[in-house]
Structures are given as structure tokens and as C-alpha cells.
């Protein structure tokens, strides 16, 4: 865990509301694991006040990539960053997806919705390196929400796209696509990131089919380092369940530990 106040922006790319930034940050990059995140300070005034959490979209020995969708002021400010600008980031934080040993030849299905694809690119490449067979189920409202299809494929990841309006790939929710695929093929593990509703639907299918799954949870985060108790989610452990800080014990949790509210 490091604070890198002057990480130089190396690349900045945009597709409509979606943006990718690559920054130079050996301190963060070298320790990064898929599913972990960074806390980024947007702007240098007190508005926005708090850092913003973004998943590691990719990382190398000296670089960190983030991929995000503009939501409000913080992400708008980040979207204006250009090569040569600097970024103030803190990380890598949290615990990522488990990369089980002996996963060689097994089937890992990554399910991502919208901006939820962010951590799955990094994860997919690591799983490939472990010799896993990786399929990415990539969903969004419309084709414009799936800007990374080519990038995923050229990384050697098989992509199945789903759009609510049918403008690209399967016509319907990515969870429906998953239901269809579970009927056709075999998954040894699901790695999921996306809106709560989508993850809940996926969790239903995973439980029904008995496929082990991990979910990357979201919550409003004050600090990202376990100090504010703001980011809690209902999580089971041995003794029962309670409010657990997802920035510390998560954001990735195995399905059996997650209590889906509402």
C-alpha cells in the first residue's frame, strides 16, 4: 500500500462516458492484484472532498490502468486528465479475486456489467497466464456501454456480449445470457462485477448450478483503508453475519459470504 501523489498520466482514452487512464506508478503497480482498487483524489480543492475508489483495470511493474464511467464531479474531473498531467492515488487496496492454484485447463467465466468490466480485464489476463480457459460475459444497456470488446478479445479472452436493446450480441440481460450458457457449457468458477441487481441475479444462478462464484461489491467509501467504517456490506462469517468493511475484507467476496439485501 502506497500513496503516489505524482503519478504521471501516460495514456488517456475515451469512449463516450467511458474513460481509460494509464498512469506511471511502480509503487502501486508492482503489488497490484486483480480485484483490488485504488483511491484517487480528483481535483485539488475540497470539492470533491473524498478520494474516489476505482478498480485496477490493469497493472504492470511500473503502470496502473483505471477504467471508469463518468458518474459525477469526481469522475468528470478525472475524465479531463491528459497525458503529462499527474494523479494522486492510494493503493493497491483491499483483497482481490482468488487465483486458485491448479486452475490450469479449468473454465473461468467472468461476468461484467457496464463499468463492472473494469477489474475483469486484469483478472482475465492473470487467469489466462495460469492456463485457465476464460470466457467474459460482457453486458450493458446498449453497444456503447461495451467499448472494450475488441480489447478483451485481442488479449485472448473469449467475449460473449449482451445488450438490453440487442444492439450488440445477446438481446437481454447478461444474467440471462449466463443462464443460457450455463445450460450449454460448463463453468468451474464465476467472477462477477456489476450493479447489485445484476449480481443478485447471477448469484441466484450460481447457487442453483452450484458453481463457486466471487463478487466484487460496491459501497460509498470514505477512506478505502478501513478507518471510517462507512463502506460496510452484510457479510456472513463463522459466527453469523454483520456489517463488514468491504474496503478491508473485500471488495471481493465468495458468494456464500454475501448477504444480498432487499
Amino acid at each position, binding site marked *: *500500500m502506497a*500513496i503516489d501523489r505524482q503519478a504521471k498520466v501516460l495514456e488517456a482514452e475515451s469512449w463516450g462516458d467511458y474513460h481509460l487512464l494509464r498512469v506511471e506508478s511502480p509503487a502501486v503497480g508492482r503489488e497490484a492484484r486483480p480485484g483490488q482498487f485504488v483511491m484517487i*483524489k480528483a481535483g485539488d480543492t*475540497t*470539492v*470533491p*472532498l*473524498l*478520494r474516489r475508489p476505482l478498480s485496477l483495470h490493469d497493472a504492470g511493474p511500473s503502470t496502473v490502468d483505471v477504467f471508469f464511467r463518468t458518474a459525477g464531479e469526481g469522475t468528470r474531473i478525472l475524465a479531463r486528465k491528459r497525458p503529462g498531467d499527474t494523479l494522486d492515488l*492510494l493503493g493497491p487496496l483491499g483483497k482481490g479475486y482468488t487465483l486458485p492454484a491448479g486452475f490450469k485447463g479449468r473454465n473461468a467465466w467472468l461476468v461484467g456489467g457496464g463499468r463492472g468490466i473494469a477489474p475483469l480485464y486484469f483478472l482475465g489476463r492473470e487467469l489466462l497466464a495460469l492456463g485457465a480457459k476464460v470466457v467474459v460475459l460482457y453486458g450493458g444497456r446498449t453497444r456503447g456501454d461495451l467499448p472494450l470488446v475488441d480489447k478483451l478479445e485481442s488479449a485472448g479472452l473469449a467475449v460473449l456480449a449482451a445488450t438490453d436493446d440487442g444492439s450488440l450480441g445477446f438481446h437481454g440481460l447478461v444474467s440471462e445470457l449466463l443462464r443460457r450458457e450455463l445450460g450449454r457449457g460448463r463453468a468451474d468458477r464465476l467472477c462477477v462485477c456489476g450493479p447489485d441487481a445484476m449480481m443478485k441475479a447471477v448469484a441466484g444462478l450460481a447457487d442453483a448450478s452450484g458453481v463457486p462464484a466471487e463478487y466484487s461489491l460496491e*459501497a*460509498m*467509501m*470514505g*477512506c478505502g*483503508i*478501513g*478507518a*471510517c*467504517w*462507512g*463502506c*460496510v*456490506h452484510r457479510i456472513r462469517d463463522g459466527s453469523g453475519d*454483520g*456489517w463488514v468493511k468491504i474496503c478491508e475484507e473485500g471488495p471481493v467476496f465468495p458468494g456464500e459470504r454475501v448477504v444480498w439485501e432487499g
Partner: protein
Amino acid sequence: MTDLAVDLGFLKLRNPVLTASGTFGYGLEFEPYLGLEKLGGFVVKGLYFEPREGNPPPRLVETPSGLINAIGLQGVGVRAFAEKVLPRLRGRGTAVIVNVCGADDDEYLRVVEFLDREEGIAAYELNISCPNVKKDGMCPALFPGPTHDLVKRLKAVSRRPVITKLSPNVTDIVEIAQAAAEAGTDAVALVNTFLAMAVDIETRRPKLTNTFGGLSGPAIRPLAVRMVYQVASRVKVPVIGMGGIMTGADALEFMVAGASAVEVGTANFVDPDAAVRIAGEIGAWCEARGIARVRDVVGTVRA
């Protein structure tokens, strides 16, 4: 080389910068980012006697230059604190202050009596102001009578110095501080958070599950500085000031207004090393102006 040490009478601090309760966890969370021994001290998260669940999320909302929280004082309770946390905090070369909470006066007493048997605690900070626990935000700190009684009872049992932390949600902060002083508090700390609310206009629901929460951060600094000035200029006990301190200059504003020491809260979330950075900035500022002892700036404002 400016002398940054401050003496609260009952407690000497290496420098005037403490970290504020609830914003610094149990201290250990920050070890990757700063040396605890570089702090004047730190105040641990509010402790009730029993463990507490806290409020359901969402517990935080960001507002312009501010943060509303309704954590609901989730915590491990005194036993787990004494067994699991405190041993790891001993011998860190910094003052550990415990923020004492209670659902009623008796719970405050039980917490103090329990902790009095433990070593490694420099003082108690009474969190008699707890804006987001009860829905209506009512608590002893809002009235001089209850404040006086609670402080008096705690001083009677406690073997350690007692700092009374005041709520800003009052008409006359001086009156409350005076009540705590008359009851024998060793110092007052102010301010705690301001009772606040934010509404989601789409869902027509409060943005916090708890409806109300406490506002902190730079937004409240001008209100906190005003209260610290009023109390320091009219009440005889040392004042620990806080509210929106992000930089050394902010901390010095509180000290010039009358605070003998300061606490840094929300800033710890933005920069895990904020408190140490701020202590350094205070030193550099004094240095550059040839100020020999930081305590010489306390209360120097001429109104």
C-alpha cells in the same frame, strides 16, 4: 528549531496534533502510512461497553466541502478493545486517548471503570455528543445540567484525566463548556459533528439510512473556529480544537483562536498521513517566523 511540545497540564504532547475519534480507526490501520510516534497522540474510535452493530448503509454522504456520516458507532466494545487492540497500542511512544460513549450515564461509568484497570491509556475523551446515534440527535451535551452531572460522576470514578467533547448543535456553547469545567473536566474538545441531512430527490428518501448524520470537514471550519474562540476566551480549561482541519494553516487558525491542541478528523480519510503532514506544516510555519515555541501562538488572536 521550534519546540512543538504542548502541555495540557494533565498531559504533555510531543506536538499539538491529535487524530480525531472515529476517523483514525484504532490507529493500527494507519501504520502503513505514518509513524504513530510522530503524532501528538490519537483518539481511538468511540467505545461503548458492549460491541455495537452500527447503522445499516449507506452511512456516508459527501456534501460541498463536507462529509455527513451516520456510522452509528459500530465498535468492538471494551473487552475486545482491552484484549485485542490495546496491547498492540502500548509502547508506541504516543498518547492513546479513548473516546468513551454510553447509551446512558451508567454505561459511560462502566466503560471508564473497566478501562481504569488497563494500562496504556493517557486520558478519556467523553463523547457526550453523538448526533447520529439517536434519531432525534438528542444527547447530554445539548444541555448544561446533564453535561455537568455526567462529567461530575465520571471524574469521581476515573483515575485518568477526562476531556469532555462538546456538541456544536447548541445555542450557547460557552454555557455547556462552563458546565463541564465546573464539573471538573480537565479539558474540553470541540467540535463534534453538526446534525445534518441530505435527501435523494429521485427516491424521496434520506440519503442516509439513519435519516440524520453528522457533518464534518472544511465546510464546518468557520463555525468550529468561532466556537473554539468563544470557549477559549471565556472558560478556564484547556481547549482542544477541531473541525475541518486539512492543513497546518487550518490547525494554526484554531490555535491562534485559542486551542492548545487540535484534532484532525476527516482529513485522515483524504490523506492517511495528513496528521503527520499537518504537524510538519505547523513546525515549518513557526520556523519561518522565528517562533520558538508553538504554544506561544495559542490564543494570540486580537479581536
